[in-house]
């Protein structure tokens, strides 16, 4: 069946900001879909509020709407674009829910838009638990497919009744939430009240499912594809190493399934196919999760997602079968047998990939950012990223995956003495799933725990436990050997040991181990991910390393550039850096280089085998990167390595790579180091006569105290060489400083703590610029909306800067140039300034791609990362202006009066974390970054753009109703005007007594409610929180009283803010944010907030740009 000819335009909905449970895998899938649809000659209309995505690059769609993904905004896009069809199965739960809402509201019918991929009915059947249960139970009896015994509840009373039948523990699963939001396991009635209560609140249909516990069962997932001719294939099986009870996103997972016989696997396959047929997913992919009782093989179908999921991205990378791409083709009418397999080119996509390697995915957590959060792993996903590794054995893949996490403690470590290992304590510890459990399992093995004891404690399959024991045995051999023989070294490498691990065991450095290894000729070979276990020749160089015999890297003629990616997503280093890496690959391919990507993050576009000419799915450790470089040097000329686009991960390797004789293109490692080095950077500033806040460095408390005394409190303290403000705090007094130093265990002479004067009330400014040694191109100047002291990644900002004058911009330009020149930048630089009392202070400079590069590129229409890549390889800014990559004249700092205002807003993951007591973690912003993602609002005026950013990031600003206000004393003066304006607009103001008093004196009547701490009559306090929880209040304004420190928030305000998060009420915690919100509310009230595509804005943004040079 060829492609349908009754569709000529398709609306694709993306997944919006990166949040826990819905990350950049949907950029990967959406990007693939857009590419496919356009190549089929269809007009593609895209809606996605996330500017950091590749899919929102203007060239991936005909009309790109960076607008909030809400039914209201998407309807406006539909009204404007009138697409024939809507593809909502590639944008995660967000897209699916939006499509369902549009259908329910009659919008799709009104505009004659056909939902393709999965019908409303199929989505209903897949997502509605009762319908799904009926489908599973209706399958042929011989398959013995069951769902867990369960009951649907809509109230707490119903929950209590249900438990009387099911017994504890019960699993609570709210309907229509993603990533397991609001789900958990209740062991008793208290748990039930807490978890089911939250679940009912989180479900848009106030519905939770309570089901029998299948904790500890084996857990599997199957990725299934179906076409409109009813051909079905299983793309991949995935086995969770962590058994049932841990969300699959938080589990260590393995592909293919390792511990199923063919009979059991075929039963799962039969059920999966039966389910996709009955649910009626006509075209595309879905994933189905199973639990298998290890004692008797009883199979329980857990759930299915009638859409492309996080696991689909993993399965695509694990097999080389591009699920999203194929799903898009199926959606427009092709059948599987009509689509060629990209990798073999000769065989069709209607087959099931077979693997001759093992894939292991490990999650990466960010608990250090939320010190009060409960770190136990449950059915509620908490990880912020993941790393994947491929090996020719499980042991090799697992150890590679663990070191891909880039956490110093993630890899197994045998240094500690045996006497430290308390078996019973370890067995108790590993019974509770937590981040790093596997390492404790290894310790328990070292402590002599038997396979039975380990299985009883963890329910991890005995085969996996034996593989861990095998790793331990190899380590023991390495430990016990008189000398490291070639045979033993090779054996250890085959089981995935890094040079570093071996070195630690043998008491030598990783460099020495590497030297010995190279002298002995023990190097990895590179195998190919080819979908078919070598049955057919692969045409796509998608490689992974293994200590095996034969390498498959082909020789090449063209000079290669290696691009080092950014590794697993983490807070502070996410999709934005992948964006820049992908752009470099695209740009350098265009000008004739062979691009070679090295990365280990399965969620990304960079690890798509079509992005670069060659892909190495490898850990970003020095050892692994050096081996890739060696292999590529054997294959042909290597021009150099790009380290400045992938964030701190590749940057951290720059100096060591250079020491090993690897050419680094662009800004030199020495220049990178200079910018990080306080003293040297200080001299650059002094030479250029640029002021910086007073600062100093210290390696001890006395040293830090001396610096702080000299420059005066408050001070900003942080460790050197970190990204995302890790460990950064604002310290107002000496005891807090002492406490900070005491907690900072990683401080050493090589890594001192930096102490800066903190500029209260300053306006913070972020600049992204390009420099080629001669010319400067200011990519964008962003003005932060929150005051200085809030991490730039968590702060909202506006571009162009909304309150800066020409004089300020001129100063910024001069300073940026001086720093770029002084540091020696070739490529991108990001500088943070603070404007305080007309003085422009330099806070810090990073000679690399920043988090804001994609935002700036989207807002200004200039591809900064592409330009940077070409600068690094020797072209000049003048060349790039001539080539049409950069505008012929002008830059991001002198936009015309018609240019729109773009507002970036951060998205915070607070709703994902609970304290041990089950409370939400505090939501205050600070100098340590905690956001997972961002959205952009773009419109002609700031207010509208801000309102759009708010709508994209959270619930959106209210246009009427109640506003609750409680601000710190120092903020009271600034709060009067905006609150008065809200009152004038008809909002009812509710305030705490102090705030209300100030308002009253200024002519604003506010209803007084009492804070919890003001009254012993807890009734009043409860009422305040209840007011928020019940949804009566549409907006909460609460600025913190005093400061936070060490993750222990002041009680005041904490309950207010957490209640707001729990209830999904917008919560503003700064006065600047309040002012912006008022402008946004005014804009929204005026109505007619329109939508406009980036392509349409581009004409306004780049009025003076010249067309690309004609090369013909």
């Amino acid at each position, binding site marked *: 069946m060829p492609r349908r000819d009754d569709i000529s335009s398709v609306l694709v909905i993306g997944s919006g900001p990166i949040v826990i449970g819905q990350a950049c895998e949907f950029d990967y899938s959406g990007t693939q879909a857009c590419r496919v649809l356009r190549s089929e000659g269809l007009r593609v209309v895209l809606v996605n509020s996330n500017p950091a995505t590749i899919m929102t690059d203007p060239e991936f769609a005909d009309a790109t709407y960076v607008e909030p993904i809400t039914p209201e905004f998407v309807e406006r896009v539909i009204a404007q674009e009138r697409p024939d069809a809507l593809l909502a199965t590639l944008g995660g739960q967000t897209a699916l829910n939006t499509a369902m809402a549009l259908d329910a509201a009659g919008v799709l019918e009104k505009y004659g838009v056909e939902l393709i991929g999965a019908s409303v009915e199929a989505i209903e059947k897949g997502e509605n638990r009762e319908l799904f249960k009926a489908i599973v139970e209706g399958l042929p009896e011989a398959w013995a497919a069951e769902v867990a015994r369960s009951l649907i509840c809509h109230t707490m009373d119903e929950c209590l009744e249900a438990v009387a039948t099911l017994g504890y523990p019960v699993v609570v699963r709210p309907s229509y939430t993603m990533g397991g939001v609001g789900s958990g396991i209740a062991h008793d009635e208290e748990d039930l009240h807490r978890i089911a209560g939250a679940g009912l609140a989180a479900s848009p249909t106030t519905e939770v499912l309570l089901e029998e516990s299948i904790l500890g069962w084996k857990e599997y997932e199957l990725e299934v594809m179906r076409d409109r001719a009813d051909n079905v294939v299983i793309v991949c099986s995935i086995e969770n190493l962590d058994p049932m009870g841990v969300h699959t996103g938080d589990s260590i997972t393995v592909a293919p399934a390792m511990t199923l016989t063919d009979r059991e696997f075929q039963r799962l396959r039969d059920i999966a196919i039966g389910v996709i047929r009955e649910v009626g997913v006509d075209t595309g992919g879905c994933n189905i999760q199973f639990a298998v009782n290890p004692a008797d093989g009883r199979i329980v179908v857990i759930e299915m997602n009638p859409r492309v999921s996080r696991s689909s991205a993993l399965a695509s990378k694990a097999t080389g079968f591009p699920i999203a791409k194929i799903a898009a083709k199926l959606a427009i009418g092709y059948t599987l047998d009509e689509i060629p397999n990209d990798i073999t080119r000769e*065989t069709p996509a209607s087959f099931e990939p*077979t693997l001759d390697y093992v894939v292991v995915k490990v999650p990466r957590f960010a608990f250090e950012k939320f010190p009060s959060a409960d770190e136990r792993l449950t059915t509620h996903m908490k990880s912020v990223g993941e790393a994947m590794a491929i090996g020719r054995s499980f042991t090799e893949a697992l150890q590679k995956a663990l070191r891909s996490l880039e956490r110093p403690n993630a890899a197994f470590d045998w240094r500690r003495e045996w006497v430290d290992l308390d078996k019973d304590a370890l067995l108790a510890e590993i019974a509770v799933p937590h981040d790093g459990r596997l390492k404790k399992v290894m310790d328990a093995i070292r402590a002599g725990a038997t396979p039975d004891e380990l299985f009883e404690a963890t329910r991890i399959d005995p*085969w996996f436990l034996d593989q861990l024991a095998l790793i331990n045995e190899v380590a023991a051999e390495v430990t016990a050997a008189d000398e490291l023989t070639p045979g033993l070294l090779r054996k250890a490498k085959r089981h995935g040991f890094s040079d570093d691990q071996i070195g630690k065991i043998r008491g030598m450095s990783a460099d020495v181990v590497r030297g010995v290894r190279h002298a002995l000729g023990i190097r990895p070979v590179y195998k190919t991910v080819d979908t078919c276990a070598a049955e057919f020749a692969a045409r796509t160089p998608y490689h992974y390393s293994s200590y095996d015999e034969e390498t498959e890297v082909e020789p090449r003629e063209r000079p290669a550039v290696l691009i080092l990616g950014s590794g697993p997503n983490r807070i502070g280093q996410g999709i934005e850096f992948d964006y820049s890496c992908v752009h470099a690959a695209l740009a350098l391919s265009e000008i004739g280089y062979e691009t070679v990507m090295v990365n280990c993050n399965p969620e990304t576009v960079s690890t798509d085998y079509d992005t670069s000419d060659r892909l190495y799915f490898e850990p970003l450790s020095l050892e692994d990167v050096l081996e890739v470089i060696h292999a590529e040097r054997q294959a042909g000329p290597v021009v150099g390595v790009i380290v400045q686009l992938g964030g701190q991960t590749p940057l951290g390797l720059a100096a060591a790579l250079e020491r090993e004789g690897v050419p680094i293109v662009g800004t030199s490692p020495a220049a990178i180091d200079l910018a990080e080095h306080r003293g040297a950077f200080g001299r650059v500033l002094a030479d250029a006569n640029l002021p910086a806040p007073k600062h100093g460095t210290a390696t001890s408390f006395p040293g830090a105290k001396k610096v702080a005394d000299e420059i005066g409190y408050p001070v900003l303290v942080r460790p050197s060489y970190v990204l995302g403000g890790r460990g950064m705090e604002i310290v107002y007094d000496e005891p807090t400083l002492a406490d900070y130093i005491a907690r900072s265990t990683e401080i050493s002479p090589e890594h001192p703590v930096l102490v800066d004067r903190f500029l209260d009330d300053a306006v913070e400014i972020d600049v992204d610029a390009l420099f080629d040694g001669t010319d400067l191109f200011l990519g964008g100047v962003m003005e932060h909306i929150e005051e200085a002291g809030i991490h730039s990644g968590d702060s909202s900002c506006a571009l162009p800067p909304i309150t800066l004058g020409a004089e300020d911009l001129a100063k910024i330009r001069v300073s940026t140039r001086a720093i770029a020149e002084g540091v020696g930048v070739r490529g991108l630089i990001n500088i943070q300034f603070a404007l305080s009392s007309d003085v422009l202070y330099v806070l810090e400079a990073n000679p690399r791609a920043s988090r804001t590069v994609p935002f700036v590129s989207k807002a200004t229409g200039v591809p900064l990362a592409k330009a940077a890549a070409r600068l690094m390889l020797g072209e000049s800014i003048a060349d790039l202006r001539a080539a049409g990559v950069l505008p012929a004249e002008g830059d991001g700092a002198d936009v015309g009066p018609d240019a729109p205002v773009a507002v970036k807003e951060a998205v915070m993951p607070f709703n994902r974390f609970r304290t041990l007591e089950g409370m939400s973690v505090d939501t205050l912003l600070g100098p340590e970054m905690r956001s997972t993602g961002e959205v952009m609002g773009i419109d002609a005026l700031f207010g509208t753009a801000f309102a759009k950013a708010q709508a994209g990031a959270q619930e959106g600003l209210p246009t009427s109703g109640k506003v609750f206000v409680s601000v710190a004393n120092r903020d009271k003066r600034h709060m009067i005007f905006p609150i008065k304006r809200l009152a004038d607009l008809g909002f009812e103001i509710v305030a705490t007594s102090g705030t209300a008093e100030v308002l009253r004196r200024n002519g604003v009547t506010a209803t007084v409610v009492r804070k919890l701490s003001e009254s012993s009559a807890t009734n009043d306090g409860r009422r305040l929180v209840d007011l928020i929880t019940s949804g009566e209040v549409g907006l909460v304004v609460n600025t913190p009283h005093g400061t936070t420190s060490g993750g222990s928030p002041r009680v005041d305000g904490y309950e207010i803010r957490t209640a707001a998060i729990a209830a999904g009420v917008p919560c503003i915690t700064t006065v600047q944010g309040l002012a912006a919100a008022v402008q946004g509310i005014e804009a929204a009230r005026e109505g007619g907030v329109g939508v406009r595509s980036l392509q349409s804005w581009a004409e306004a943004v780049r009025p003076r740009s010249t067309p690309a040079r004609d090369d013909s």
Partner: protein
Amino acid sequence: MNAAATTRATRTPAILVLEDGRVFRGESYGALGQTVGEAVFSTGMTGYQETLTDPSYRRQVVVMTAPHIGNTGVNTEDAESDRIWVAGYVVREPARVASSWRATATLEDDLVEQGIVGISGVDTRALTRHLRERGAMRVGISSVSEDADALLAVVRESPSMAGADLAGEVTTSEPYVVPAVGETRLTVAAVDLGIKAMTPHRMAERGIEVHVLPADATLEQVRATGADGVFFSNGPGDPAATTDAVSLLQDVLRERTPFFGICFGNQMLGRALGLETFKLTYGHRGINQPVMDRTTGRVEITAHNHGFAVAWPTDLGDTVATPFGDAAVSHVCLNDDVVEGLEVRDDDGDLVAFSVQYHPEAAAGPHDAEHLFDRFTELMTARRTRSTEGTVR
């Protein structure tokens, strides 16, 4: 704890030598010793117990592309015959424990017990690529001597698969009956050319009483079963060398007895119809092969194990007239257009015989093509009805 058993085999150095002289070094696996056979690779990620016990692998040294083998041990239910047939076994990562609630022993213990010589730790992907590029070839494994030259000489003296008539080596010595599950609705005479246990089981599930006959069965023996249909099984060897079965099949076709063949049985049908068979460069062995059923337009994911195939003399879409009716290609492998199924229709256009080159009984493998057993059942039922009508008329 559901680990049924643990193997702690001591590994000794082992070598694998291909007839073109390429040598792989690894460690012993299974029984210690020396073995020769035809090197073939299988890409299935599950189902090693079924593969090992499949008689079609007689005299073949099987290279598993999936690295981890033996994870679920062996059990009493999944074997496809009462012994392991492979001549040798090549894996990368043998399991040390068997983990499955059904496991009764480790795979390695089973291999040792049955004297199967294997090798582990070799670069099975490199070996597979070698076979893919140069074709299936003879191979030797030794875990008792590291002398590659000596082993190479042995390999080069060993018989080749082309021209090998092996059905007699694997077939049952005596006829036996697999009773129908429930009511007996039909009877089938199944000629065992290397039959897998699942095949008669799939028929029995459909109310068929299966009379399994030795490979040298005569038409009289077939007739004596009173069969409604005749079935030819899978099996090892070169179809061109297996001539007796072909003439038996021609007799069956002449009598218009409904016929169904699987794998080797498909090649037998091809030869009975006067078509040629040929050796594929490296064969199809795996459980992920896409086959288009040209009669329905559906794609099925199927289990394959064949080194030979039927050569179609004309365009795949054309029919060929034969003494037994018009023959057509019913199934094609989408990877390489190899003929995967044949059907023969009489002058009225009614189906009289059909066969597939792959394994609808699917042990191991997906169940997508299991409906072919229904097709056989329908064919026999239709023939019975027609016969009855004919008598009345």
